[in-house]
């Protein structure tokens, strides 16, 4: 039956780690873009914006693929992705820096303590805002959480 082929995220709208291609610990220390775009939609601004050609796509309908070794974690793709599906994660000692797109009010300030949310919208405790880029309407915000939440936290509540 067709129903059997439905992937879990197609039912819930929430990805699990197994749906993603993961970087190694060393790559995470350097900082990499995690692209949470798992469906072939005709879209390629991330490929066009990447200054080091770390994101590739053969055809516009392909999935974007990040070369974790090439990626310099410059964060430009975070703000450009129309699907708000790219996050930059960098692990530093016991902390993880997560850069995410944010399109709500109020806009937090550097130093603010906000609530970190996972892909389900559940609270994962406090996060410290370390960087806010307000150039575009889609703000690009970097928060600091504990290292074990690096691949879980994907949103904030201010």
């Amino acid at each position: 039956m067709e129903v059997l082929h439905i992937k879990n995220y197609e039912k819930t709208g929430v990805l699990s780690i197994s749906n993603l291609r993961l970087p190694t610990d060393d790559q995470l220390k350097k900082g990499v873009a995690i692209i949470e775009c798992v469906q072939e939609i005709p879209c390629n601004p991330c490929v066009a914006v990447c200054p080091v050609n770390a994101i590739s796509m053969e055809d516009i309908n392909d999935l974007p693929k990040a070369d974790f070794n090439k990626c310099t974690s410059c964060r430009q793709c975070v703000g450009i992705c129309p699907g708000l599906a790219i996050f930059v994660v960098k692990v530093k000692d016991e902390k993880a820096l997560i850069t995410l797109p944010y399109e709500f009010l109020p806009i937090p300030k550097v130093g603010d303590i906000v609530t970190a949310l996972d892909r389900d919208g559940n609270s994962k405790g406090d996060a410290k805002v370390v960087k806010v880029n307000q150039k575009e309407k889609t703000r690009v915000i970097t928060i600091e959480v504990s290292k074990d939440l690096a691949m879980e936290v994907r949103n904030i509540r201010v």
Partner: protein
Amino acid sequence: MRIRNHPIIDFKKKREISFYFNKKKMYGEEGDTIASALHANDVKVLSHSLRYKRPRGFFCGIGKCSSCFMTVNDIPNVRTCITPVKENIKVMEQDKGGELPNKQFINKDKKRIDVEIVIIGSGPAGLMAALAAAEQGASVLLIDENHMVGGQLVKQTHRFFGSREEKAGMRGIELAVELMKKVVEYKESIQLMLATTVIGCYKGKKRHNLIAVQKLADGDQLFEINGHKIIVACGALENMLAFPGNDLPGVYGAGGVQTLMNVYGVKPGKCVLMVGAGNVGLIVSYQLLQAGIMVDRVVEAMPKIGGYHVHAAKLRRCGVPIYTSHSIKEAYGKEKVEGAVVVKVDDYCQPISGTEENISCDTICLAVGLTPSIRLIEQIGVRTEFILEAGGHVAVHDSSMQTNVRGIYIAGDSSGIEEASTAMIEGQLAGVSAATSLGYDKNASEVKRKCRSALKVFRSGPFGEIPRVGKEKIACCYRNGGLTY
């Protein structure tokens, strides 16, 4: 009910406009329509039904559904969702079939306009058609029944997908402004007629004939418009869903709500139930959150989310649940929506009894698909076919977007439900094709080739499958004279 702070749109307070609703003085703001001004005053009941006197509110917000008819300055059946509010106008609930007074028309004589290409609808398809035809050198008349250009672009606050050439990464609201600027640059060749409804469409030997009514400050003016080529780009209307209570004020089309909050800056309510998890349902839910409105949940009758995962993910990480295999069973409330009952459905979309859940909400948004607007082209004798993948009855057209009636072109959602990006390309293709058939040619074949290859790219992924099949069936019908099921 006004939105003052918004992360994407700048809603400044504008000049106040006073008007009367059922003899009570109320205030709207410059730029409001009558319906949005009433909503800002928390008036959701716009009329009562003729026989059973059931309360009626608006539904589509773009002048398509006739649910917002009211009497304005003694003129009945005014579509208040697209009629701007003006100082001291008298708006009355219309609970009976109205009588048309003589004063509606300024004079009984019609004015005549002759032009090469007439384009009906100034959405993404119509605007691109106008620009493409003007670039080729043709003179164009662009008509829209709204009081602003842009069609549904003006409420799209999210970034568009696509490639850089197709303006990916731009928001619809920015795109509408950019296209309008270009139209102004071509003011020698593009004439704009807003607040104008085309009410008749007749086939001629050399030229086709349109009858239109323009709303002017002191009354309506009738026009006879003769065009060598006509491009119909009048979009689509939102689908209704059958359930008890679906006529209560507070049950809106998701697009209607998007118009209300993103164009006029008015909140539809405080707590929303979204029905349908296609892209429209997902995007509008997210935009409701951005406007500071609570979304209780999204229900989707199909076993999987129909829209892009990335849109669903945005919503989920804000904490909004999406219930697949669930649908609305009924809406309840006295004069307007006070709540709804949702229910789990089986693989055949049948409700499973015992799984009902009561939800307290004041707004229900229906995002259950769109139907192409084809009334005008049907009138002129264009052949239509029922093609499920294209959204219902659509005009059969060739690869230049020309229908079986020579000189009548179609583009955008009215030629099959798709995205704004494909509507723009189709519009461009129709505009160039119409201009070349008049003898203009500025590298036209290259423009057409580019359009066709861009359309092919957009329709080649898994999400492009439905429109691709729809367009293949349309092509099949054009050549072979019809589909048999």
